[in-house]
C-alpha cells in the first residue's frame, strides 16, 4: 500500500465524491469524512498501526459504517485518503498557478505551494519520519518516472500560456523534478517553503533556459533563442518519432 500510488490519481475521475469537501453537502460526504479521519490517524501513528476501529473512533461512527462505505477495508480506505489528498494538492496548485501573471511567477508559486503542502502535510511528515519504507519506493526509479509524468501533465497547461506545448511539458516536468529532489534530499540553505528562495532557484536555473523557450521569444536575445529553439526542436522530433 503506497501513499503516492499514482494509478489512484485516475480514480478521481471515476469517483467524483473523493474530491468533495466534507461540508459541501455532496451525496456521500461520508467517504471524505472517513478519509479525513483516517488521515488524522495516519498523522498520529502511521499506516501500519492504523486500524479500521481507530478510524471509526476518529470519525465518530461505527466500524460497520466504515465497512459499508469501504467494503474493501483498509486498502480501499487508504486509496480514498490518497485520492482526497492528491485532489486537494492539485486543486491548491491550480488556484495559485492559475492566478499567476507571468512565466516566472507561475513556476515560483507552483513550486512553492507544492513544497509547502508536501512539507507541512501531516500524514506525509509522519510517514517520512517513521515509515519511509512506505513512501520512498514511490519516489524513485519507474515510480518516480510516473510521478514526474503526472506532475508534468498537470502543470504543463499552466505554463502553456507562455510556452508552446512541448516546452511547457518539458519545463513542467523539470520543475517537478527540482521540487522533489530538494524535498527528498534537502540542500543547505535551500528551503523551498521560502518563496524568495524558490524565486532565486527559478531565476537562476530554470528561466535561463525556460525563458528562452517562450513561444514569442521576446524576453531573450534573438541569437540565443534561435540556438536553444533548435535544440528543443531536435528533442521534440526525437520524442515524436518515439511515440
Amino acid at each position: 500500500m503506497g501513499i503516492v500510488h499514482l494509478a489512484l490519481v485516475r480514480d478521481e475521475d471515476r469517483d467524483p465524491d473523493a474530491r468533495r469537501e466534507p461540508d459541501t453537502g455532496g451525496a456521500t460526504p461520508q467517504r471524505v469524512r472517513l478519509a479525513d479521519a483516517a488521515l488524522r490517524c495516519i498523522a498520529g501513528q502511521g499506516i501500519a498501526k492504523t486500524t479500521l476501529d481507530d478510524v471509526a473512533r476518529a470519525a465518530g461512527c461505527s466500524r460497520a459504517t466504515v465497512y459499508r462505505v469501504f467494503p474493501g477495508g483498509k486498502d480501499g480506505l487508504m486509496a480514498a485518503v490518497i485520492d482526497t489528498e492528491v485532489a486537494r494538492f492539485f486543486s491548491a496548485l491550480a488556484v495559485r498557478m492559475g492566478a499567476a501573471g507571468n512565466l516566472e511567477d507561475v513556476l515560483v508559486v507552483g513550486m512553492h505551494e507544492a513544497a509547502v503542502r508536501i512539507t507541512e502535510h501531516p500524514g506525509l511528515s509522519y510517514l517520512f519520519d517513521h515509515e519511509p519504507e512506505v513512501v520512498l519506493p514511490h519516489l524513485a526509479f519507474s515510480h518516480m518516472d510516473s510521478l514526474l509524468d503526472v506532475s508534468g501533465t498537470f502543470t504543463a497547461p499552466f505554463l502553456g500560456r507562455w510556452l508552446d506545448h512541448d516546452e511547457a511539458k518539458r519545463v513542467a516536468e523539470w520543475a517537478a523534478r527540482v521540487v522533489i529532489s530538494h524535498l527528498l534530499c534537502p540542500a543547505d540553505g535551500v528551503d523551498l517553503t521560502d518563496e524568495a528562495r524558490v524565486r532565486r532557484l527559478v531565476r537562476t536555473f530554470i528561466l535561463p533556459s525556460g525563458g528562452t523557450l517562450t513561444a514569442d521569444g521576446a524576453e531573450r536575445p534573438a541569437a540565443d533563442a534561435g540556438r536553444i529553439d533548435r535544440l528543443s526542436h531536435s528533442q521534440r522530433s526525437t520524442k515524436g518519432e518515439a511515440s
Partner: protein
Amino acid sequence: MAGVDGDTRQRILEATYVCVARWGLSKTTVEDAARQAGLSRATVYRYFPGGRDELVDAVVSWQYLRFFGRLYEEVHGATSLEEVLERGLLFARRQLLEHEVLQMVVQTEPEVLLPKLTVETNRTVGLISGFLVPYLHEHGLPEGLEVHEAADFLARMILSYISAPGRWDLADPEQVRTLVRVELLPGVVGDTQIVDK
C-alpha cells in the same frame, strides 16, 4: 594487520552480495554470509557487530560506492563540464539498467532498498558536487552565482535524471546532449558560455 582485516571485511561483503543476489536483502542472514565466505558466524559478527542489518547496510553502501567509483573512472579525464555531464549521464544510466542485482531488488524489495539508498544519496550529492567544482571554476559562472550553489544543483539533478529520466531517453547520446544544454548548463554557465562544438 590492517590489510588483513580489510581483506576479511571485503571477503564478507562479497559473500554477502552473492547471498543478496540469490535471496534478496531481507532473507540474507549472517549465517548465509558466513557460509558463503567460508568463515564462522563469530568472525562475521566481529567485523559487523550489528549483525544482519549492519551487514546489509554495508553491502548497499559498498555497491553504491562502487557504482559511483566507476562513474568517476568514466568521467575524470573529461576536459569540459559538458563532457563530464554527457558522459556521466550516459554511463550512469546504462550501469544502472545493467546492474542486475539492483534491478531485482528494486522490483522485489523496494521498501527495504529505498530508505537505504536515500541515505546514500544524501552523501553522494556532496561527492558529485565536489567533483564538479573545479570544472565550474574553469567554466566561469554567471555573476551572483556561488560555485557551491551551482555544483549542488547540478549534482542533485544528475542523481535525479539517473534514477528517473522521465521524458528523456538517456541511452540516446543526442538526447543527452540536448538535455545537458537545455536543462543543466544554461543556469550555471550563463548563455554566452554555451557554444556549439
